[in-house]
């Protein structure tokens, strides 16, 4: 019985990683950059929801929508100011470092605006929890909401990227920006849209993250960001289903590692599994192993 | 002994049989051509010969020694060097260093000697410079030896690739479309260079080319590939006049 309950724990933790990883992988897949500031956009999103609800007394759903709008604009602004000028830089690492700069910036901005102390995040998800086996197994409303949201986003993104014109434009841009322009694709707008979507998702992720673990500081996004990055790589970075599966697996491994091996070295276990998976499958679970044609 | 002997080479990609039952046998010191329509499998043959792909079937022998299925690195050590259809230079290195990189395992000193600048470093580096310069002179690249490879004009980049391949001291040199992107004058110059290299360095050359002026100008024998299979082979003049080759490849 405890195994199943651990499994459920793992899935609920993993679903949080998954939802963050989806945003990560979306941006990576198109813009081919590791947006290290993604975790911090999540944090900003959560602060927006918190302040809307507690200070302005806004309805939670509207608060989340406002937060999505704020994050979308923030994401687009970051892209325009900090990333776009480096798009044609001679090394892709340049924009990675700038993303780190943006991450520091957002953390310290939040520190000044919202203060250093942890804020308790209100419980805004009113979905009832499910009790199984005479209450021995409980799936909380937040977990259910997270998983449902995750699946919706997964399906939505998959449809969007594969079936819409904008989605196809994204694929083209991700491969060769010059050639994409020659197809008549507005590359700037497409990348901007990618960041808009990724950051909008970050707002949702921030809300769900803080609903599940209701403690919010300017640094709340950092570690989940890294874990989600790990999850995205685990699933094959750039792959949308990979991010979801990677996230959930990561959560499950973390919980089972804690439960059955050692809670002190749970982090090491997670990373060790990641390494083993990558050694066996160098491009992650769902990553395409593309051989360069010689 | 033949320079190269290939028997029944096969490879498929998914369902696509890219190369089927490919046989080839080249005399030492020959200048041999591999031609065929686009997508016939010529580059794939090169990739099989150099270990980039492992053949599904078949045997490759270099001067009698079986090199089938070896790694690219080992095959080069055994004596096969190549150029690429899409140029692959060490872009951020100087022209001279591109060639010296190819001399890495020919002129040796220990890494320790390199770091701490022991006498063997200076002695060997001097030899390497001389050797590399000598090769660059053949290709008329010695004046550009200190500029970055990526700053060379296209034609010279192709030549540098040949020079680099040559520096590994090969028995067999594989050239994949060496004249692509060159204008007629440059092509003529290249033909002379290839001939000179073959004679001067005492090697065997196998080349892929679509420029018939070059093929008929320097190749002694040809194999024609079509849909992954050998269409015909023989003396250049004879092959180029075969109706099958004309319909499949040459046109008119």
């Amino acid at each position, binding site marked *: 019985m*405890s195994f199943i*309950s*651990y499994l459920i*724990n793992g899935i609920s*933790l993993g679903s949080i990683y998954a939802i963050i990883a989806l945003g990560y992988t979306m941006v990576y897949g198109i813009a081919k950059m590791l947006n290290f500031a993604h975790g911090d956009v999540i944090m900003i999103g959560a602060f927006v929801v918190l302040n809307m609800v507690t200070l302005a007394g806004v309805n939670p759903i509207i608060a989340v929508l406002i937060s999505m709008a704020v994050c979308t604009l923030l994401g687009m602004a970051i892209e325009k100011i900090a990333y776009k000028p480096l798009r044609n830089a001679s090394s892709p690492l340049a924009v990675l470092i700038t993303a780190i700069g943006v991450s520091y910036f957002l953390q*310290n901005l939040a*520190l000044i605006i919202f*203060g*250093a*102390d*942890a*804020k*308790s995040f209100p419980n805004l998800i009113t979905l009832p*929890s499910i009790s199984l086996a005479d*209450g021995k197994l*409980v799936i*909380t409303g937040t977990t259910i909401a997270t998983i449902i949201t995750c699946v919706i986003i997964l399906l939505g993104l998959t449809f969007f990227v594969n079936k819409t014109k904008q989605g196809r434009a994204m694929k083209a841009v991700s491969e060769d920006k010059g050639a994409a322009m020659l197809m008549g694709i507005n590359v700037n707008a497409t990348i901007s849209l990618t960041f808009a979507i990724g950051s909008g998702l970050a707002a949702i992720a921030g809300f769900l993250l803080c609903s*599940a*673990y*209701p*403690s919010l*500081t*300017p*640094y709340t996004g950092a*570690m*989940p960001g890294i874990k989600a990055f790990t999850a995205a790589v685990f699933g094959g970075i750039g792959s949308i289903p990979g991010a979801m599966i990677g996230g959930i697996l990561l959560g499950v491994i*973390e*919980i089972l590692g*804690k*439960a059955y091996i050692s*809670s*002190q070295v*749970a*982090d090491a276990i997670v990373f060790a599994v990641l390494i083993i998976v990558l050694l066996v499958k160098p491009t992650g679970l769902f990553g395409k192993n593309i051989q360069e044609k010689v | 002994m033949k320079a190269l002997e290939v028997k029944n080479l096969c490879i498929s990609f998914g369902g696509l049989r890219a190369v089927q039952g490919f046989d080839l046998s080249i005399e030492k010191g020959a200048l041999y051509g591999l031609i065929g329509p686009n997508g016939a499998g010529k580059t794939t043959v090169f990739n099989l010969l150099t270990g980039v792909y492992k053949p599904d079937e078949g045997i490759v022998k270099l001067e009698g020694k079986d090199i089938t299925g070896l790694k690219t690195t080992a095959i080069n050590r055994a004596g096969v060097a190549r150029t690429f259809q899409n140029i692959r230079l060490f872009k951020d290195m100087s022209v001279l260093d591109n060639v010296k990189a190819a001399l890495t395992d020919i002129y040796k000193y220990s890494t320790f000697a390199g770091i701490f600048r022991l006498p063997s470093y200076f002695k060997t580096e001097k030899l390497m410079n001389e050797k590399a310069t000598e090769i660059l002179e053949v290709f008329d690249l010695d004046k550009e030896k200190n500029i970055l490879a990526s700053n060379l004009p296209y034609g010279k980049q192709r030549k540098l690739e040949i020079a680099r391949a040559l520096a590994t001291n090969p028995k067999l040199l594989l050239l994949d479309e060496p004249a692509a992107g060159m204008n007629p004058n440059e092509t003529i110059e290249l033909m002379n260079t290839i001939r000179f290299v073959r004679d001067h360095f005492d090697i065997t050359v196998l080349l892929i080319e679509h420029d018939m002026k070059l093929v008929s100008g320097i190749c002694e024998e040809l194999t024609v590939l079509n849909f992954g299979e050998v269409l015909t082979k023989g003396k250049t003049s004879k092959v180029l006049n075969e109706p099958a080759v004309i319909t499949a490849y040459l046109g008119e």
Partner: protein
Amino acid sequence: GKKEDSDNGGSGSSSDESVFKIGGIGPLTGEAAVYGVAVKNGAELAVKEINEAGGIDGVPIEFKMEDDVHDAEKSVNAYNTLKDWGMQMVMGTVTSDPCIAVQSEAANDNIFLLTPSGTAVDAIKGPNAFRVCFSDPDQGTKSAEFIADHDLGKKIAVIYDSSITYSKGIYDNFVKEAKNQGLEIVSAEAYTTDSNKDFKVQLQKAKDSNADLLFLPIYYQEASLILKQADAMGYAPKVFGCDGLDGILNFDAEGTEGVMLLTPFVANADDELTKHFVESYKSSYKETPIQFAADAYDAIYAIKAAAEDAKITPDMSASDISDKMQASMLNIEVEGLTGTIQWKEDGEPNKEPKAVIIEDGEYQSLD
């Protein structure tokens, strides 16, 4: 220092000779910023009060706090910056590891150091270093004693942060003392700062071990998550914690009913001193002070008391000040927010811990 005037509690624009320069060091940015900021606020409040009341024997205090991002190396940088500023005494550092590094520098330079909240044993290794808070071993030992004395439970489960000195330090000593007190540790599960969100596994194990009491030698942010997750699991153990739990009521009172903690400071205590402090803190900083702020407040008053006892003057060298202060620290008794404190030779404070229990969202004395 011209610019500092605005934020050092109004020390006046005195020249270097006529002020005592006290340097504060702690994390004002980074993940531990909440503790550093609390210390800064508490200390500034005390400095302001003292200066308004005429300073230390008529000499005002100038206080300057530098950020160390909770990093030992940056802490030493902050210390050196303050030295360049002319610091005569250190009030810091806030967190343990940086404090170990800084106190070793300060011992070399012979500068007097009083840490409000550095709990590690080595944080006050030198003869020049003292502290206001309890040390980790103290808290671990006292917790075990208290639990045994008050018969709160025989079988104990522990959840602690194995990656931070504070929590690990208390845990280790708790385990040691528990044995002496005849307590049985039935489950001891760790977590790390890198995975401090989900505690269901640790809770499940505590639950399965049929413990009478859950001991949480951790900080309140994680404790709050633990309590909520326990609640969601339908697990309602008796909970006992240390001073790190203080602050939990301001953070989120949900699920804290019945939690007991050993803390020297209780923000809703009804003695005049606390009331006054909490009130002025709230009016200055718009939040309820946590124990770190109280420790810092006491630290400044302790410095005042010792300085007055030592009869030091601002024109003395930092080293002379240190020598005198060291001696005087052993003479003074401070009626502080965190208790009535005397100091021992080794720099440790001698004070009584208070144990409280949360009832109706308020601390109630447990004794």
